[in-house]
């Protein structure tokens, strides 16, 4: 992994984390992990509460979609585990974070959101191939749910970018944008 790549991965990781943490704070006050003083100091120490334009990843919110499409949501148990995983991820405890998400996958194996979360952990630890594979797994189980599919393609694009495979990254990104 190049320095450049790791930095980029790091930025992506922290921003998705910030999203999910803030999401958690809304959904599950008890599970709110205190904003972790991340050990590594670089720039994206942005306040956890800021929320960029794109919608957060793991939240169920009224979806502006036709009623026939039911985007998956996380069960309370999975939500708690994903929240836990995000705290663990913040302290770079990749194995433990993955293990928390695996627990959720055992409960809801067909929920593409969880596979995307696991893919994010893999991406953060630099295992880009598994990050991509997890996202592809999510794509395969979300044929009828465009929003999740867009997220999954976004992760695929990210994993290609991290490996320097720009053309494939752009293609994947285009698919992500197309479903949105």
């Amino acid at each position, binding site marked *: 992994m190049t320095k450049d790549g790791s930095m980029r991965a790091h930025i992506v990781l922290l921003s998705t984390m910030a999203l999910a943490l803030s999401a958690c704070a809304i959904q*599950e006050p*008890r*599970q709110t992990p205190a904003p972790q003083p991340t050990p590594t100091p670089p720039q994206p120490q942005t306040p956890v509460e800021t929320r960029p334009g794109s919608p957060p990843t793991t939240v169920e919110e009224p979806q502006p979609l036709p009623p026939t499409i039911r985007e998956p949501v996380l*069960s*309370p*148990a999975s*939500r*708690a*585990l994903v929240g836990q995983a995000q705290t663990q991820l913040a302290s770079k405890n990749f*194995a*433990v974070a*993955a*293990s*928390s998400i*695996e*627990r959720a*996958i*055992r*409960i809801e*194996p*067909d929920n593409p959101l969880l596979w995307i979360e*696991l893919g994010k952990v893999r991406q953060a630890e630099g295992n880009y191939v*598994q990050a991509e*594979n*997890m996202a*592809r*797994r999510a794509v*395969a*189980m*979300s*044929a*009828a*749910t465009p929003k999740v599919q867009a997220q999954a393609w976004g992760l695929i694009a990210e994993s290609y970018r991290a490996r320097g495979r720009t053309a494939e990254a752009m293609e994947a990104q285009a698919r992500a944008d197309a479903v949105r």
Partner: protein
Amino acid sequence: MNRKRSSRLRKYRKQIFAGIVLILGLAVLGLLAWVFYLDRQITAQFEGRRWTLPAQVYAEPTELYVGQAFGADALERELKRLGYQRVSTPRQPGSYSRNGERIELITRRFRFWDALQAPQELILTTRGDAIETMRNGRGEDVPIFRLDPLLIGSIFPIHGEDRVVVAPDEVSQLLPAALKVVEDRDFDEHIGVDFSAIARAAWVNLRAGQIEQGGSTLTQQLVKSYFLDNRRTFGRKIEEAIMAMLLEVHFSKQDLMNAYINEIYLGQDGARAIHGFGLASQFYFGKPLAELQLHEEALLVAMVRGPSYYDPRRHPDRAKARRNLVLDLMKQHGVLDAKAAAAAAKRPLGVVNSGANAGGYYPAFLDLVRRTLRRDYREEDLTEAGLRIFSTLNPYVQSQAEQALAQELERLDKAREPKTGRKLEGVVVVASPQNGEVVALIGGRQASYNGFNRALDAKRSIGSLVKPVIYLAAIESGLYHAASIVEDGPVEVKLSNAQTWRPQNISHEYYGPVPLVRALAQSMNLATVRLGLEVGLDKVTRQFVALGLPREPPQLPSVLLGAVDVSPLEVAQLYTPFANSGFSTPLRAVRSVVDADGQPLKSFALEVTPVSDPAAVYQVNRMLLEVMEHGSGRPARAWLPPGLTVAGKTGTSSDYRDSWFAGFSGSHLAVVWIGYDDNSPTGLTGSSGSLAVWARLMASIGTSSWSAPLPEGLKEVSIEFPTGLAARPDCGVDVISIAAPEQAQIPAAPGCEVGVFDSLGERARRWWRGFSR
């Protein structure tokens, strides 16, 4: 003469004296050397044993969360399995109370691979078959909680000694007190050997004319146990006594007592010797030593004298009488008050069944764990280093699988001619396809027998289990779909050795032109061989490797009918991509390994790899559903709950030597094999043998339906099952639904074209069909 001799004696007095001194000196030196040698031996043994801890293997922990499919009864069963004690108000970890639909418990402290879990009070309510609320002691909602997992065994050395070592703080005060009272009253004072006890025992035995009482101290018993030597020679006894005294010199009474508690032999479980009170507590009561009640502890103390003579499972009366004697002795010597002793003496033995319940033993699964870890660890690390291994076994699914297999094998054995005397063997593998975890594994008819592990080592011909692989290769080629027509007619293949291969259907009939879906569902050999040859043998054999078979089968036409030797576990791996939408995930039995201090050493993380086009796999899976509805898997319906959607395939090898079934639901993938070890014919097909085991199992583990969204680029099509012609669902013969590529052109059955108005004739046909049912 006398004077002469005495003078000579006098003359040699000095020499004689010197000689005697020399001999004595040598003897003393020799004795010292011997004692020194014994000392080295016994201390090495003692120190060595202290750190010889077999790796402990845990089952997968049960997760509790709102919505989890646990009714109050099932939840209570689960707690009992974990050895939780029912009380009126839970105050101790490992206890629970139940009031109708409300269960209150205090969980045990447990160190998982990723976190230390402190004891916690949980209050659960259930409604129907699910957990409705879960709160902690402060009334806050708990979204998810992991119960401490069941200890399912350990990886013990080849000589069979198994133990669960306990630290002094895990042992109640009563246990050492009881041991002293019953086995060695002067333990705190003696020097390793108790001469007054020996004299007393000798007197008793002399009067009785037989050995009634032993004079061995706990220390001597410990020495004896270290060297596994039952010779009762006088020399051996002396050696033992010296070693006992040496141990006393080197170690404190507390250390010796703790070593004794972890060392002493307390029973036998097949090849496994149960050593120490920690394992005995798990083995006999299914819970940790710290949670034993008085009457349970007394029973274990009672068994020290003769674990097989006083085996509470085989000789409950004898065991109870001696337990009550122990309680009585404890009372006499002031360890217990009379009331407590009397109350404990009234209690039943309280021993759990070995096998299906706690304390059960899963050799086939543990063998898989052992082999998994042997890649990374030396044998000594596994048997001595005190590793803790978190496995994927689900004890409930395992016991259901054992039951399903045992029942069917018994039925099948009864149904065949009784003279042969041979018994059918069987294997079951159950995995969760999405994460590759092996949740149950049975390696043979006697699930608790530690021997030939057929699940891993029996490589047998898999017959028609190969067919989905061929159909997947066909669909992936883009040239076929489920309604494509293939001819089921005579096939001749010229082999390289100038012979001609003429395969047959099991029925020895020809079915003519049939759609792929029917050829697969009804397991037609000729149609399949033709299809496989059209697709290309090389493509088919490569497909096996892509799906996860460790080696490519030879490119021979007979491979198309399953002449490939594969173990049941490998079959499960081969079917994983089907159950997992085209993704392969390595089957694993271990989640994580931590060292004796709780530091994670290794985790086997979930990995997935796309190995086949999800849309192609989806089309094959839809055909595999038809196996269960219209084909050879149909008899399973007799056991399966109505509405449960499952997919699967039967397999029968040539001359009915192997009966297979492999199939999956939404949450479980299971493979069953039945056959004889000597590979002789069983007369069973996959459908008449293994299918019933599979169906009984699937019906009993609360599995979920297979479902997957229709992949992009595919469409739903209704076709007639026999002809493959498109037809409206309300028209045509045996109309089924398949998935086919959007651009696929499927000719319609005359009069049943989609969108054509209901004709009078069609209405008549419907009327007639309704009538004829």
